[in-house]
């Protein structure tokens, strides 16, 4: 008796392939602030680092520091940071909540954008998403919501958090 196999083999070359790009907004900046510091007023904390301070951050973390993506706010019981990082094929905006002592208490991804055509290397493309003012409408219109297979790691976010903590130590805690 023939028992049908439970394994389906599909040669990829024979399949029609679509190239939609995954783009997902999870939280706005304000929603993330409200989640991490409910009902608190957050006031912007300027992060003007001197050249020496930037060099110290880069040395300590082994990453490059680009002014413009990282922003900080102070609330009654902690700090709120928003940052953006790019990987080989993606851009991730994320937020980190710190305690008043500078310990990480929450991390949320705000937005995830894929770009397989090398767009991440294009400053004009990046600037659509980085440093965007509150409430700007977001261009979306892509169809894939859930993906499986060949997923990229989040190492650049982990590195970004490490860098942000070094910036906190130098630009906020030490001052």
């Amino acid at each position: 008796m023939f028992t049908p196999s439970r394994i389906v083999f599909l040669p990829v070359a024979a399949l029609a392939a679509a190239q939609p790009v995954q783009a997902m907004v999870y939280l706005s900046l304000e929603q993330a602030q409200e989640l991490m510091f409910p009902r608190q007023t957050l006031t912007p904390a300027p992060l003007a680092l001197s050249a020496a301070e930037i060099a110290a951050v880069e040395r300590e973390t082994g990453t490059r520091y680009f002014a413009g993506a990282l922003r900080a706010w102070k609330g009654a019981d902690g700090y709120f940071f928003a940052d953006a990082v790019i990987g080989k094929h993606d851009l991730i905006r994320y937020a980190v909540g710190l305690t008043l002592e500078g310990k990480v208490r929450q991390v949320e991804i705000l937005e995830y954008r894929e770009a397989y055509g090398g767009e991440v290397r294009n400053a004009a493309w990046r600037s659509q998403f980085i440093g965007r003012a509150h409430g700007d409408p977001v261009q979306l219109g892509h169809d894939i919501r859930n993906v499986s297979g060949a997923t990229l790691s989040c190492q650049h976010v982990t590195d970004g958090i490490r860098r942000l903590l070094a910036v906190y130590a130098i630009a906020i805690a030490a001052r």
Partner: protein
Amino acid sequence: MPLQSPRVERRDAGHASVRRARPLLGTRVEIGAAASVSAAELHRAVDAAFATIDRIERLMSYHDPESELSRLNREAAARPQRVHRDTGAVVRAALEFASLSGGAFDPCVAPWLEDWGLLPRHGGPRPAHDASWRDVEILDESHVRFRRPLRLDLGGIAKGYAVDQAVQVLKQSGARSILVNAGGDLRVAGEQGETIAVRSPQEPAFIVRTLVLHEAALATSSACYSRRRVAGVEVSALLDPASRAPYLGGASVSVRAADCTTADALTKIVLFAEPRTAERALTAFRAQALVLQADSA
């Protein structure tokens, strides 16, 4: 159709739908849920689900020298080690999958992955050359012992387990329409089906298959991103336990099963077991596999 995590979180009184993501388990973990509660309450339930995933990562991470798993690798050959319930459950599941697959699923091949720089080398007794998963013993539900020094690695199953636990937390909170996706290992629960897009294994920009999941889990394994050259040799994180050779093919294996722990483990069994063994395992768990075969690089 615009794709957006709803910026408006309340559609009508006491009905909320959210979708959030955090960097966990080395990847982006997404949680989506809907419930007949306020947005604030639903967010708290999602917080709890993320916290569970974080807790599981702290227990079972091979990368973290302070994890419970790392403690086992350092101490369990010397004396039985008490473990949390979750760790015990995952170790037990790993051993069961190893046993039913004749070792095609093998949680004890980390020394080779360490050699290739794919896993960190922490301190501890040198693994015995002929140690295997058969040397891992579970004593009275909450203790684990190794008969010989070895390196236990739960990376082939822990992600699926974390997804299942997060789904449980959300179910207990009363959420419907639950989705948890940990870097492509995912599970869907609730009334509605979810459409899942499966990437081409070697051209991840392209989606080559979509399927609808309803009350089920899907896990995908491929060597796509772990493949690299080490000391002049091509390696990947998918190691064939029988030959000790890295999988370098261009295929991906996706398994649909009732839960994500099972789906996760079965992808390795489909990759490395004899076809008859793989079929038997899939049948036993009422699972199906989809193998996307790209041209080999």
